[in-house]
């Protein structure tokens, strides 16, 4: 049996039961690797319940800093008897499997091409700790210790991290340390360490942080000066709101008076949440909500009102698997169409597509600027993968010179100087009218409505007056095209291109590197906003064949490109991944090769994908 030998370049998968505290052990491991200077990524595949069901955590270690799933597992930590079968099947040939050898597990011996490592985690913890809950929790910390030994992980990092977490609770700190030691020592005593898979310190994580997209987006909202947040709980958007509240409670409460410089409202549902955001934004506050697919559906009537009555709003859609309730704890990019054309009638909504937590931070700020500048909702389409997983990204930058773009809002003096204020006249030729805020000046008063209105803001049922406003909205749409973030472009002039979006970026980037190694060069465009800018048009025009990689069944990005650019869709080839797991680089490579070599199309679900 030949074992894989890989330094800083392999994937660990940890199979446990949810509600048992494995999350902290996994984070501990991942952060320790990160602090060793080795690029790392963690992805959590958890069930949609609270306790007792199978859950997996994947840690990919990659010296080149690729952020996608590799598609293979070299080291499986199989701690959930219910899933042993599938877990053992998933280990790559030559790989390793660690299990709790307190009880014999013959099924784990079914493969002869992998190395099985038994550590009596339960026994070790039962002998050393008391209390059911403590023993369960410590078992997890214990496997972290075992892995540290197997992978040659610097225990100093583990200790430091535990110290930061439990600094004020010395007892907890001590028992955690003890559990680490139990696993570490046992493994050192019984197995040759390290494994052929190991961590060696590097210096490739400097200037980076490990953060999830929801926390990053929340921080962006704080920095953008958002003051009103209204929402209704829904996975996977909840942590964004929790983080916003947490930051505000630390940063926005007057230490003297306790006065809060923000309003945080748990609404009764998503219809109310978006209504509150519209009310607040109409009244001049930066306001936002976060939700997921079902919430977008419920918000669609109000989104149409906001489009037509020209009310700013920022909505984060942390996409999960649809349709309907779907799989709330799996990822997908399935709301592209629902968001772009949200609501009945002729509507089109500005969308931003961050690819990682760094862009979540940045686009949160951009979203408020655009919403106020364009007086329209801006939807930021993140997803569960970005939002709830820890990503290694560059440290965020902030320019203290930044001031929000509040858009065309007339102040009291400006209103006073007008003969008459007209809400919906295109004064500047860019399709964006001027607005006023309540409470400023009686001459600025106007009536906001979703019913037919003319350029002056008056109710109308007149065909021409109605149409004038609708046509101006299209003009504004063209202005939006110039204001939204440009797409990212990469490549050296191949005749084949690939387009992707959001969280598909990591897999595509890695795939391009792998393909380049095989002599296949593709130019790459990552779309970052809707409407599409001229650069998207140009990219599509400049390539003979364009792959479109996205994570949904119905080729929604390809649909948007087909509708909203001049491209003849014949040259667009879809690479569709929609199993609910983040797309892997392998999937993209296989899809491109199949087309380029004329081979049979790659199966949409790869083996590795079927295992969760």
């Amino acid at each position, binding site marked *: 049996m030949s074992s894989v030998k890989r330094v800083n370049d392999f994937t660990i998968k940890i199979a446990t039961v949810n509600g048992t505290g494995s999350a902290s052990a996994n984070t501990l491991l991942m952060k320790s690797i990160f602090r060793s200077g080795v690029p790392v990524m963690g992805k959590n595949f958890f069930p949609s319940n609270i306790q007792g069901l199978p859950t997996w955590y994947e840690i990919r270690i990659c010296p080149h800093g690729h952020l996608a799933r590799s598609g293979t597992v070299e080291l499986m930590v199989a701690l959930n008897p219910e899933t042993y079968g599938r877990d053992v099947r998933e280990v790559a040939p030559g790989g390793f499997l660690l299990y709790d050898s307190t009880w014999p597990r013959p099924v784990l011996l079914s493969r002869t091409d992998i190395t099985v490592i038994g550590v009596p985690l339960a026994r070790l913890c039962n002998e050393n700790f008391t209390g059911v809950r403590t023993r369960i929790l410590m078992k997890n910390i214990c496997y972290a210790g075992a892995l540290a030994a197997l992978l040659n992980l610097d225990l100093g990092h583990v200790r430091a991290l535990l110290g930061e977490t439990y600094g004020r609770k010395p007892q907890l700190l001590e028992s955690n340390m003890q559990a680490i030691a139990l696993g570490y020592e046992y493994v050192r005593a019984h197995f040759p360490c390290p494994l052929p898979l190991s961590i060696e310190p590097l210096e490739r994580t400097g200037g980076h942080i490990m953060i999830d997209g929801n926390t990053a987006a929340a921080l962006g909202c704080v920095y953008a000066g958002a003051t009103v947040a209204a929402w209704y709980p829904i996975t996977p958007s909840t942590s964004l709101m929790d983080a916003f509240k947490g930051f505000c409670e630390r940063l926005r409460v007057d230490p003297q008076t306790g006065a809060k410089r923000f309003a945080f409202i748990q609404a009764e549902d998503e219809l109310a949440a978006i209504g509150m955001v519209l009310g607040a934004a109409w009244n001049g506050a930066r306001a936002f909500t976060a939700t997921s697919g079902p919430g977008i559906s419920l918000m669609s009537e109000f989104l149409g009102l906001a489009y037509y009555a020209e009310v700013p709003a920022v909505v984060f859609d942390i996409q999960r698997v649809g349709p309907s309730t779907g799989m709330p704890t799996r990822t997908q990019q399935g709301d592209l169409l629902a968001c772009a054309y949200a609501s009945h009638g002729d509507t089109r909504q500005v969308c931003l597509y961050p690819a990682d937590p760094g862009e979540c931070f940045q686009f949160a700020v951009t979203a408020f600027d655009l919403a106020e500048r364009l007086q329209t909702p801006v939807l930021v389409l993140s997803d569960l993968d970005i939002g709830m997983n820890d990503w290694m990204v560059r440290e965020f930058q902030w320019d203290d010179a930044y001031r929000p773009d509040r858009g065309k809002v007339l102040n009291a003096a400006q209103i006073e100087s007008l003969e008459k204020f007209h809400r919906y006249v295109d004064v500047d030729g860019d399709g964006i009218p001027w607005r*006023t805020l*309540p409470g400023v000046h009686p001459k600025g008063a106007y009536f906001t409505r979703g019913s037919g209105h003319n350029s002056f803001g008056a109710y109308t049922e007149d065909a021409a007056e109605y149409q004038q406003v609708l046509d101006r909205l299209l003009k504004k749409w063209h202005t939006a095209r110039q204001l939204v973030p440009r797409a990212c472009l990469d490549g050296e002039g191949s005749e084949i291109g690939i387009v992707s979006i959001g969280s598909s970026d990591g897999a595509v980037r890695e795939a391009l590197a792998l393909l380049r190694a095989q002599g296949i060069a593709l130019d790459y465009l990552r779309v970052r906003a809707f409407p599409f800018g001229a650069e998207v048009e140009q990219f599509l025009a400049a390539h003979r064949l364009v792959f479109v990689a996205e994570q949904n069944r119905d080729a929604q990005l390809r649909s948007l490109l087909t509708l909203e650019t001049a491209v003849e869709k014949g040259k667009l080839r879809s690479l569709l991944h929609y199993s609910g797991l983040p797309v892997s680089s392998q999937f993209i490579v296989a899809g491109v090769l199949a087309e380029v070599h004329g081979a049979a199309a790659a199966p949409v679900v790869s083996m590795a994908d079927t295992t969760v």
Partner: protein
Amino acid sequence: MTFIAKPKVTHPALPHNARGLTRRAYEGALSTLCAGCGHDSVTAAIVEACWHLALEPQNLVKLSGIGCSSKTTAYFVSGAHGFNAVHGRMPSIATGANAANRHLNYIGISGDGDTLSIGLGQFCHAIRRNVDMLYIIENNGVYGLTKGQFSASADIGSRAKKGETNRQPPIDPVLLALDLGAPFVARSFSGDKHQLVPLIEAGLNYRGFALIDVLSPCVTFNDHEGSTKSYAYAREHYDPVALTDFVPREQPITVDYPPGEARELALHDGSRIVLRKVGADYDPTDRVAAQAAVRAGSASGEYLTGLIFIQDEATHPDFHRLNATAQEPLNGLPFEQLSPGAAQLERILARFR
């Protein structure tokens, strides 16, 4: 619907309020409702109340949903911003607007369809949050704008114009509001300006959610015999529990009330509500008793009207007091107080290493 602009010629002899404005300054566009529609009388009462309170027009914010009733907001105080939201969702717009600026005066106008059917959830939750606003329901027992279907406030036995009899129990917004903890609950009738105007004044000044359910007959679809929301029925089954006077801040009470006949309630801004007895004792500060009285009234087909319940503002904090929001309107806070800056970012990011 404002096809026609109303000329705003001010006659010099018109009376002026404390702000030097005539009633004209509190009017809006010409109504397009049916001649005789109860809603137009509510409009008139609002104009009167705003004038009397000498509100700064721009400090009023007018919110509504969809329906004949919801059009009302266009017909008063043209110097105030208005927001005609989608059907049944005005309460959420009001909540958000109020969150952004706690210092304006929010008035929401809705219908019985808008509030009790599609909007029931939002209505209840706005009460629960105690959003500081005056919420008026122009209650006519039907969907006026969609031509006369029964609404959820139609009484059992009430007959539709086309002859059908309603057999489903009504939802009474007054009972519901009492049940959900609303701190200011009133009922009135569009035909009784004398009662309605001071209630509106009090509701506008009250800090917290103030509900006035106004019987406002629909002359086109629900003013016939057999309807329990017609002018005739309302007039005959009208039972005021108290006469309410509103006394603005810094204004002395000019009338002498016989001792034991009046009761005074002070609001946060120094204004006062004076409740004068009519008939039997009625205690508008006892929620359970109020509920029982309203229920007993309904059972015998009577409309209990007036200020049915009021709670001391201090004992029932509004949304902002509950949340300890800053005193300055959130929409006006300087950016420096909101955005923590680059140095702070460094510190925050430290925990993500």
